[in-house]
């Protein structure tokens, strides 16, 4: 009997999640509306004479990404609760590693699209010199998103069987996100302020370390979480 490989399981799970999201568009639309709303509210709520774009832009960007991403992460395992589909996954020989990687891939694509759509809006609202710094800024966004998604996917699986899982996820996830989000905000501010690369390395190391440690931990713990 042929067996599925970790890679084939991961791609199948990611493709399925994205196909379902493309059909329903529930999480994408709510994330996008939320992102536009936050960027706009923060822009119009400030007094431009006292709070400059540089002061507000990094925080606005990461508040938007974090909470818009949370809406998507919530959806990732709620989908598996529907009709007890998670049991269907567990009845197959698919490895927990494959399922986790598939979920992470699906969430990365989802969040990547939300970020891709939000970034031009951010540029529109905030007058910051982004174009020359775009490659390094995109790299920081990618690094922070990987850590965010890895921990978020694990915790999303953990809370999905609880009542009020939509409330539980932010409560559990936000404390874990302090290191990557603070690093990302600090890096974004320095990048937009055209600071030298030497000022970025410490925060980049912190962000990179968070990604490696928490991605590995999430991967190792996921199997235990799947068992009821």
């Amino acid at each position, binding site marked *: 009997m042929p*067996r599925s490989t970790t890679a084939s399981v991961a791609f199948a799970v990611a493709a399925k999640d994205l196909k379902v999201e493309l059909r329903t568009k529930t999480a994408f639309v709510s994330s996008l509306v939320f992102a536009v709303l936050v960027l706009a509210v923060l822009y119009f709520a400030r007094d431009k004479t006292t709070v400059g774009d540089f002061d507000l832009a990094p925080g606005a960007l990461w508040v938007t990404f974090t909470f818009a991403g949370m809406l998507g992460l919530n959806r990732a395992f709620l989908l598996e609760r*529907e009709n007890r589909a998670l*049991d269907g996954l567990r009845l197959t020989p698919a490895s927990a590693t494959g399922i986790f990687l598939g979920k992470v891939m699906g969430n990365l694509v989802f969040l990547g699209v939300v970020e891709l759509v939000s970034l031009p809006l951010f540029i529109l609202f905030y007058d910051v010199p982004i174009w020359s710094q775009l490659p390094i800024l995109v790299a920081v966004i990618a690094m922070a998103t990987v850590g965010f998604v890895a921990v978020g996917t694990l915790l999303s699986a953990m809370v999905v069987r609880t009542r009020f899982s939509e409330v539980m996820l932010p409560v559990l996830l936000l404390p874990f996100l302090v290191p990557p989000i603070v690093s990302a905000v600090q890096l974004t501010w320095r990048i937009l302020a055209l600071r030298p690369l030497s000022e970025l390395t410490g925060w980049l190391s912190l962000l990179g370390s968070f990604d490696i440690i928490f991605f590995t931990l999430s991967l190792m713990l996921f199997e235990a979480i799947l068992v009821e």
Partner: protein
Amino acid sequence: MPASPSIRVREVSRRFGHRWVVRKVSLDIVPGEAVMLIGGNGAGKTTLLRVLAGLLKPSKGTIELTGTVGMVAHHTMMYDALTARENLAFFARLHGVPRDEWLDHLLELLGLSHVAHERIGTFSRGMLQRLAIARSLLHRPDVLLLDEPLSGLDDAAAQVVLQVIQELKSRGASLVIATHQLVELVSVAERVGIMVQGALVALEPIEGRDAAAVVARYRELVTHAA
């Protein structure tokens, strides 16, 4: 020499909190045999099947299963936003089984070819049940656990499912069927297990395919237990 069991359950119990839902269940099922589990609501049939499937860990006891396991439960375990074929293709991929022809065969067998490309969110209860049965057969399981397999099915579909069960048995699969529909399923099972308050109080051969005798025995045991 008797065939070695493909399902060997020893003193299995499962509790939720302080409540024991399955109590010290032991049974062996050999290849090609079907055991029907009957019992009232809350007797522990579904929990026992979920423990056998590996979806729940037993609180006590051991389970040995030989070969691959398939399961049909109360829920479809599939995605409403995907079509019937997409759902089957997804689970086939996770099982690592070749897809196209086998999927078409299963859809045809269970009378779902005409709705293969429709989202299952629009399906009736009976259609979902047939699709769930198709999903459980994707990897040609050696052990099949069926929880109310005829629920929601019309007579024609029920006959197809009974035929599928016979075919599975003839190629050596072992089946555990939890049901309230004794009359229909008594024709395919070799033994009946009667569950009362989480315990398997009787496991007996079905003589003469007589559903009335099984019901009478069940009532006798329930009265005795009360």
